[in-house]
């Protein structure tokens, strides 16, 4: 038991040699790749499959399509099959058409002679084929750049406002003593209790009264104050030693300066996390923009993505392609921001 905790909590001794705890660590990480990441890779692969290939089971990892060949005397390319058994076993034939259980086929080497083959005897010949049209169709169907801009604008503005407003509130709730402090914090946490689905309609009515429908600000402002953000930052800020602030006050720094120059930089890990979350929430948000925005020139990428859900059918091929496209920007942002969650920024004595 002790050894397990050892490898979890230890800071590396710096001798560069892999001991067994490293092996356990890396085993866990590679298990993580398999369980957490492999499905995502599969998703990316699937975005290159045709709708028919997606419906197929058992599902396959790589996208395949049937191989075809132009044969003399036929306008359309013909589908190729390997013949497994029967009279023509071992050959590769092109199929002209199939009637019931019999296929009419032709040997590409000898296109004049038509052959009859039992359907049970043939296996389709397949090759790797990426359905790029899943992606290109997106650009034909949507005003992609406009949606991208809308999404970006909403995400950037909302994240900036959210981080600032939440950090201010968290500062007040962690570093000041005033009456009603606990009450305010309880109220903030309390708002988490009602599921978002439930307040959607009342929130819509409020937003409408404020005249913010069909405007990107109608998406940005209502979500700017999140209880999660306040709570998260507040809990981080209470671990920042009060002595640092007292020292700054001695130096006659204004409260705003303490907030801006000391608290914010010291909270960098938590702010990085909140930014990642805020960006993700805004970028992926769909329920709220869907009800606030009803004109397509204001639409976001997520609305476009979800428009592939029809009544009876979902166009999974396009939807997955769109998912991959919308995933790339936030994945990049994540890789960038996660660096700020680095070890050992704070230490006991201040900077």
């Amino acid at each position, binding site marked *: 038991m*002790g050894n397990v*905790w050892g*490898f*979890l*909590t230890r*800071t590396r001794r710096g001798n560069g040699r892999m001991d067994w705890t490293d092996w356990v*660590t890396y085993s*866990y*990480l590679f298990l993580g790749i398999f369980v957490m990441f492999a*499905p*995502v890779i599969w998703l990316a692969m699937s975005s290159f499959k045709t709708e028919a290939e997606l419906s197929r*089971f*058992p*599902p396959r990892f790589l996208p395949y399509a049937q191989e075809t060949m132009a044969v003399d005397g036929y306008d359309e390319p013909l589908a190729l099959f390997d013949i497994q058994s029967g009279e023509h076993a071992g050959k590769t034939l092109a199929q002209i058409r199939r009637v019931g259980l019999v296929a009419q086929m032709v040997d590409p080497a000898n296109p004049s002679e038509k052959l009859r083959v039992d359907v049970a005897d043939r296996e389709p010949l397949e090759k790797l084929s990426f359905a790029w049209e899943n992606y290109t169709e997106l650009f034909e169907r949507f005003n992609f750049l406009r949606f991208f801009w809308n999404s970006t604008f909403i995400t950037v503005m909302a994240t900036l406002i959210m981080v600032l407003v939440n950090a201010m*509130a968290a500062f*007040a709730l962690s570093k*000041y003593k*005033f009456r009603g402090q606990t009450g305010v914090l309880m*109220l903030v946490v*309390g*708002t*988490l*209790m*009602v*599921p978002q*689905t*439930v*307040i959607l*309609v*009342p*929130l819509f009515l*409020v937003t409408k009264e404020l005249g913010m429908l069909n405007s990107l600000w109608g998406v940005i402002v209502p979500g*700017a*104050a999140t209880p*999660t953000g306040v709570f*998260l930052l507040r*809990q*981080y800020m*209470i*671990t920042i030693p009060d002595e640092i602030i007292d020292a700054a006050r001695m130096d006659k720094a*204004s*409260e*705003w*300066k303490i907030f*801006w120059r000391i608290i914010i930089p010291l909270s960098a*890990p*938590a702010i990085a*996390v909140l930014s*990642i*979350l805020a960006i*993700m929430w805004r970028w992926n948000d769909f329920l709220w923009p869907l009800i606030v925005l009803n004109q397509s020139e204001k639409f976001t990428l*997520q609305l476009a993505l979800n428009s592939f859900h029809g009544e009876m059918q979902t166009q999974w091929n396009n939807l997955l392609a769109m*998912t991959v496209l919308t*995933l790339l920007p936030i994945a990049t942002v994540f*890789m960038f921001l*996660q*660096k700020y*969650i680095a070890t050992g920024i*704070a*230490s006991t004595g201040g900077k």
Partner: protein
Amino acid sequence: MLSVLSSIMRIVEIPMLFLQHKLGINRLAWVFLAPNLILFGVFTFLPIFISAVYALTGGDKILLEDRPFVGMQNFRTLGDCGNFLDPDTCRSDFFWRAVWNTVWFVILQVGFMVGLSLLTALILNQKIRARGFFRAVFFFPVLLSPVVVALIWKWVLQKHGVLNAVLEGVGLEGHSWMLDSTWAFGWSVFLSVWAHMGFYTLILLSGLQAIPRDVYEAALMDRASPWRTFRRITMPLLAPTMLVVLVLALIKGVQTFDEVFAFTGGGPGSATTLIVQYIYQTGFAGAPRLFGLASAASMMLAFVLIVLTALQMRANRRSFNG
């Protein structure tokens, strides 16, 4: 960008300084709180209050002014039970099935979620190779939409899916996972842990940064056992962040809906119907839309959550007060 930001901040400093002199340092807290509270007031408290009023009305009209006031009737409809433990004796049997499903779901999900994300955060906090990549690996599922999460795992778990193919490949028998209530429930818990674990891992990761490195170095000097270091140093210093994770995991666990709904639709039968799905289908997706009943159910849900959270905070009073 940064210089623009810092000049804005310098401009903001002028009125803030004025207010500081006017109000004194501790009352300045309200100024820091004001923007948040105003936004909360308008876009969160007000809608919640309106929802509470909806809970007292009936009918299927959308606008409050068209709806008849029915007092506590919606609450009585939900609470009309012979025996609360047996949904079949209740008038709103689906509601109570959902309630009990949710209770079990939360117990399992929160346990696995907090345990696994703590383990993952501790590992990812070490000096490992390709740390950024591995952090992304564990965070990636959080970025996926619930519908896509459900789709991926359906591919894996359907009758002709990947898992059965693997099982049959090694000589075992496949199983109709999605037709078996117990398995469907278990996989729903797994799916929701899979989809959200990265979120809590990330929060814990930030919390671990608040632990000064020299404390560990001191412990190392004292040859304290690693388990002891974890108990005596890591856990107490991580406690404030741990509280965030516990509270959020509990609240969000109770509110789980999207991914499980897209995954099983609440089935087989009502084996994985959770309470927010009940609310959604009663008030929004169903026909007729019974906003009143749905709001009443969410008020009851909120009440239970407030009690649970208050208990959690009381138990962790030290980390709450800093």
